[in-house]
């Protein structure tokens, strides 16, 4: 049984989503999670079409709204492994508020963001991570807004697992995404990938020349040092760090929630309603 589904995706030839899909299927195959117990929740966009090209349970919902759905799936059935996946526009733009509060909730799930720094499906508008000055189909004189730094934001909010990886390094991808799924809590993985059609700045070569793994560069790098991790998350230029930037052990929603910490699976709970006893308070 493989998570890979043999169909032709509706992506542009050469899209970064192709290697991402292959690497993701390989990663999931290596984890020994039964397909029936994994749920992928996505929003809308080219990235969000991913579950149609894999074999798994999925909820392909609304633009920007994957995280609330994913949260609730996990909350009512903690036995499921939940992965939320979408693009940078979906997660950081339309769904930005849910990203912030999803981190606060810290339920055990993994968030994969296809970050190509542009809107693809709507044809080339600037996204929250598009760099200043870049000319797009809707910012014709160049983007003037400060780009959102997803890693710095996630670290500030104390997400317990914050990482970056690259579709050009499938082994790095597998290592990082496996660790993210294994980590208990809200794991954030920002995935750098080119958009061959609409982003002529952040190309495959652009990322390839700049990305380096923090551990490879410095074996002493400690992702548990929050201040150091925050500093690392601010690096963006000739060199761009990837790997596990920040990591922390902290109790997740499931361990703190007064009902769920009892081991209750709400979706399966069928406690009877004893009418007479419940209504006695209203006499």
């Amino acid at each position, binding site marked *: 049984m493989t998570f890979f589904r043999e169909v032709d995706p*509706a992506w542009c030839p050469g899209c970064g989503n192709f290697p991402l899909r292959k690497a993701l299927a390989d990663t999931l195959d290596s984890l020994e999670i039964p*397909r*029936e*117990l994994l*749920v992928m*929740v996505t929003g*809308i966009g080219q990235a969000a*079409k991913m*579950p*149609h090209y894999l*074999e*798994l*349970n*999925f*909820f*392909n*919902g*609304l633009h920007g*709204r994957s*995280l*609330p*759905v*994913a*949260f*609730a*799936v996990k*909350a*009512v*059935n903690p*036995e*499921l492994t939940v992965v939320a996946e979408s693009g940078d526009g979906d997660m950081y733009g339309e769904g930005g*508020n*849910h990203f*912030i*509060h999803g981190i606060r*909730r810290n339920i055990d799930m993994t968030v994969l963001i296809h970050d190509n720094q542009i809107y693809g499906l709507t044809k080339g508008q600037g996204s929250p991570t598009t760099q200043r000055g870049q000319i797009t189909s809707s910012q014709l004189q160049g983007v003037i807004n400060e780009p959102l730094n997803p890693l710095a934001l996630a670290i500030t909010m104390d997400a317990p697992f914050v990482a970056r990886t690259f579709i050009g390094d499938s082994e790095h991808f597998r290592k990082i995404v496996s660790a993210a799924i294994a980590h208990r809590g809200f794991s954030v993985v920002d995935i750098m990938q080119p958009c061959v059609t609409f982003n002529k700045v952040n190309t495959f070569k652009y990322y390839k020349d700049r990305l380096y793994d923090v551990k490879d560069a410095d074996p002493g790098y400690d992702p548990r040092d929050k201040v150091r991790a925050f500093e690392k998350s601010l690096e963006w230029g000739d060199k761009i760090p990837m790997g596990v930037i920040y990591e922390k052990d902290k109790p997740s929603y499931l361990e703190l*929630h*007064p*009902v*769920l910490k*009892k081991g*209750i699976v*709400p*979706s*399966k*709970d*069928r*406690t009877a*309603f004893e*009418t007479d006893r*419940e*209504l006695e308070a*209203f*006499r």
Partner: protein
Amino acid sequence: MKDYVIAISGEAGQGINTTGDMLALSLFRNGYCVFTDKSYHSRIRGGEYVYRIRISEEPLFSMRQEFDLLVSLSKSTTLSQIEYFHEDTVLVFDSDSEHITEEDTGVRLKKLDFPFKRIAREAGEVRAQNIVSLGAILSLLGVKIEIPQRLVREAFEGKEEIMQANLRALGKGYEISLSIVLPSFKVGEHDYYFMNGTEGAALGAIAAGCKFLSAYPMTPGTGVMTFMAANALKHNIVVEQAEDEIAAINMAIGASYAGARSLVTTSGGGFALMQEGVSLAAMVETPVVIVDAQRPAPATGLPTRTAQEDLAFVVHSGHGEFVKYVVAPRTPKDAFEITEKAFYIADKYQIPVIILLTESLNDSSATVEKPVHREEYLERFIVEPGEGYKRFKITRDSISPRAIPGGKALVKVDSDEHDEEGHITEDLKIRKAMVDKRMNKLSGLLGELSEPLRYNLSAPVVLIGWGDSWGAIDEFCRSRDGFGYIHFNEVFPIDASAFSGLEEKRLLAVEGNYTGQFASLIGAVTGIKVEHVGKYDGRPLSAFWIEEALREEGII
């Protein structure tokens, strides 16, 4: 109908709500039938707070406009209530505090003053003046002192000294003899329950096995959320306060996809934010129940007042075309029962269901018969999937087999148009078949509707109502000849056959809105002309108001 209306008024923060609750519950437990309502400003302290209690021998479900007795803790709130005085209304106030004079009002008032504050101070707790007045009223109405004593003990549990002082204050209050002539009520043991619409709806949701609630707080829908939160541990419910209403509805749909009955609570403004989610629930054919507790709009409107203004919006909510079920309970008992049915219908037809409450229903406690819990409403219509399972299979009755993830087959759902398996498609033949499938649910749903309540349909004028207007409409029609009514608690879809035989009548919708929203809906479905009168000042409907409105229309 023999009745008596007591009002307690003061500023928010003066303990009016607590005193009113104790008074109402004591009267109920002594055998009276009690109906309450609250009128307050959207603020935490200060501002006017009026708690009205109507007592009778048989249950009533609306407030009488004028009251018989006003106990007022503040001069300014008394002044604002003068318009609800009749010639025998008695005003009771503290003799040591400054209060209104005839110069203020220009009319003669029947006034009784007692040194409530001084008595409370003598009892050892100056803040117990409410309890002194409570004792005086309960003594007048012949309520056994043991009943309020128990409530005082519960209210001050763990604070022995304050409790004793309040018990003394209560006893002193009982010694006050208010020289007021009452109608003679025959009251005794009864088998009723006392609850408000908030409690009815929340208990109904718990009884239906709701295990997930997500909401962003918004008056007057918040009460359902906080009631469920207070009962969450006992009933294994996850109650999540969402970052916004968009998150709330998406969470509830996610929880439902994963197999839990789920609920969202809000008011009109919050429901407006949920529109794409309502449409999503329909597209992924995932059941969800939404409480919209109505308040006057547009926009922020009047947060603590009542209205029936969201009907047209709710009926047409969500972009695109799909089937939904909209209910509006008449009473707290009905709120319990129709909420249970709401979850059942949502599951059976895999559609969004909206429960329209109102501020007045939510905040008014009423004397009701025992709500009926129906085990058959617990049926989930969830299948164990086998080989070749297709979540959106086109079936003869247009209901696809709903499985939940975690079983033997994969469950795939998509907000895009999708094929039977759940995968995105642009095949336009499939598109048409899927629309047909989703819309075909309507015929089954129409068969689920209960009969509306009907009264005196031989009358020349038949009033039409929905939701919590029933109490006022029923009271009005029973108080005079020539008026009947047909009243709905399931407001959408509308079964045109409910109106057969009424074509020759003068039909008049009585609604808590300006435009006659239900009248328009009925007209659109049946082609019958329905006139309307509407109350949109933020106050609940009453039999008295209906009479005035009909007089103004020249119908009476």
